């Protein structure tokens, strides 16, 4: 494999076919793993690579795999998270459309490393058409004996099932996803036990994001050192940065982990259009607290964003121009979380809809000055008080919008 060949998103549109992937050196890493490596060495290599989960939380992938108990005879499962519901995020779509075999290869390697024989790919309902192409890619791989029984002539089997959702942001949360695969409402489970121990159908389960798994072939093929050299020692590899909003060239940019946010927005995405200045930037999907223009030199990696009081999340960057009133951003944000709260935990159910009501009132010119403090208090009340991280995912961006743009919002209220 040459360096150019391991891009997450190949430049060529017809690149998704099996033959095209083979020509890029595809499935060599999976063959290497399955036919010449011990499963624990696969996990060790991924741990050394410092690959952190691309679904939002940034948990080290190899470490997660190592939590799966290797004793016992219960089946183990792999669930691929292709729910991609985080607003501002469109990277997994690109992998599914342009490079599905790289995801499949990553799944083979992960399953081999952990000792899994059955995998589910959970695709959001809105991507049903994309799921059809994924099914085609699966059929291609099965036909050639790269999936199914006795992969690469070994005694390793892997069956893959595509499970299409039906519209619910919460199903991206890993335990809600498990509920949804089991044919239930997507309501998150209490943790512990963690899915690695008690997951799908009560069995040990690994859940990884599409982009996380699509990085695995290059780690096994080119080695952990090669991978970390393309990113940071504890946060290896490149990242698919999606840029949308007030920029000249919205799109996906695959760049080393740690690339400064300003470079991505201004150099790669071309900065804001003529006559527009940046007012704010959401760095990692709607749940990531907003940054002000003076905060844009932050390197885009998990630890740096956390230090800056936000999060790298899904690396979906949304640029807000100075002509957009912050109340509009707040309205969209508040509506989204109120709409998507699954209703299971009271602080999230009541908090998101109360905030939404309050924000709507301000938007309609009926706001009171005390409303801003009310929103902050409601956000505080959700934080850390729900079963799943959705409470925080709603509270933090709303809190940041109100506290960082308080002056503008106060003007909106007193107008």
């Amino acid at each position, binding site marked *: 494999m040459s360096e150019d060949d391991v891009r997450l998103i190949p430049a060529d549109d017809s690149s998704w076919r099996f033959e095209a992937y083979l020509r890029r050196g595809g499935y060599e890493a999976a063959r290497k793993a399955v036919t010449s490596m011990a499963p624990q060495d696969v996990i060790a290599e991924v741990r050394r690579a410092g690959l952190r989960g691309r679904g939002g939380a940034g948990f080290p992938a190899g470490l997660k795999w190592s939590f799966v108990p290797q004793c016992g005879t219960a089946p183990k499962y792999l669930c691929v998270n292709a729910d991609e519901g*985080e607003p501002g995020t469109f990277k*997994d779509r690109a992998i599914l459309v342009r490079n599905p075999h790289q995801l499949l290869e990553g799944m083979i390697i992960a399953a081999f490393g952990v000792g899994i024989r059955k995998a589910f790919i959970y695709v959001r309902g*809105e991507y049903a*058409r994309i799921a059809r192409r994924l099914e085609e890619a699966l059929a291609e791989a099965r036909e050639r004996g790269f999936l199914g029984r006795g992969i690469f002539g070994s005694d390793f089997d892997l069956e893959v099932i595509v499970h299409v959702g039906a519209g619910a942001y919460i199903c991206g949360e890993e335990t809600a996803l498990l509920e949804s695969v089991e044919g239930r409402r997507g309501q998150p489970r209490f943790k512990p036990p963690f899915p690695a121990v008690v997951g799908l159908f009560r069995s040990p389960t690994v859940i990884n994001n599409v982009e996380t798994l699509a990085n695995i072939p290059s780690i096994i093929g080119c080695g952990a050192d090669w991978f970390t050299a393309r990113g940071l020692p504890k946060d290896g590899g490149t990242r698919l940065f999606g840029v*949308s909003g007030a920029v000249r060239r919205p799109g996906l940019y695959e760049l080393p982990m740690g690339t400064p946010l300003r470079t991505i927005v201004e150099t790669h995405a071309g900065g804001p259009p003529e006559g527009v200045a940046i007012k704010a930037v959401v760095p990692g999907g709607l749940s990531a607290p907003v940054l002000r223009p003076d905060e844009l030199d932050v390197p885009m990696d998990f630890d740096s964003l956390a230090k800056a009081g936000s999060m790298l999340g899904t690396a979906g960057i949304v640029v807000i121009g100075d002509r957009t009133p912050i109340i509009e951003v707040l309205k969209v944000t508040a509506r989204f979380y109120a709409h998507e709260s699954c209703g299971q935990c009271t602080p999230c159910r009541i908090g998101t809809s109360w905030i939404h009501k309050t924000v709507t009132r301000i938007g309609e010119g009926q706001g009171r000055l005390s409303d801003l403090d009310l929103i902050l208090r409601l956000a505080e009340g959700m934080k850390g008080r729900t079963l799943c991280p959705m409470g925080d995912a709603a509270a933090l961006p709303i809190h940041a919008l109100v506290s960082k743009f308080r002056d503008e919002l106060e003007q909106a209220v007193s107008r």
Partner: protein
Amino acid sequence: MSYAPSAATLKKIEGMIAPYPEKSAALLPVLRAIQEESGCVLPEAEAWVAAKLGIRPIRVREVLSFYTMFRRKPAGKTTIQVCRNLSCTLAGAEDIIGFLREKLHIGPDGTTPDGRITLETVECLGNCDHAPCLQIDGVDHGPVTRDGAAALLEELRAHE
């Protein structure tokens, strides 16, 4: 009234159930298949699904009412879903939504009186670099301008 899927859909449904370790896990795909054929999932179909998967009818209702893409009542022949999350709002989604409502003479999340078109607003479609975006019966379009939206409506009319 009782419900039965077509032979083709029944075969599809049986193929869907097989790979799951527990039959009931196939609930979402089975409901999707029924809705694809019938446009929605009526109470008779709910009962059929419950019997087919060996679960209580309430469990089918729970799932149907939780997921936004399931319908319990028929919608228009064509569904237009316009995204109104952040990237699309920044790119003028509300203007496109207003334009479509005006053109189709319908209010928020409504269906034209002739039953041709249902217009809905949705949260992020994951197509933010093509904002403002929408889906027509699951097919992506974007970035959509007023002229582009008018052309899409024309195309729908021409295809009838």
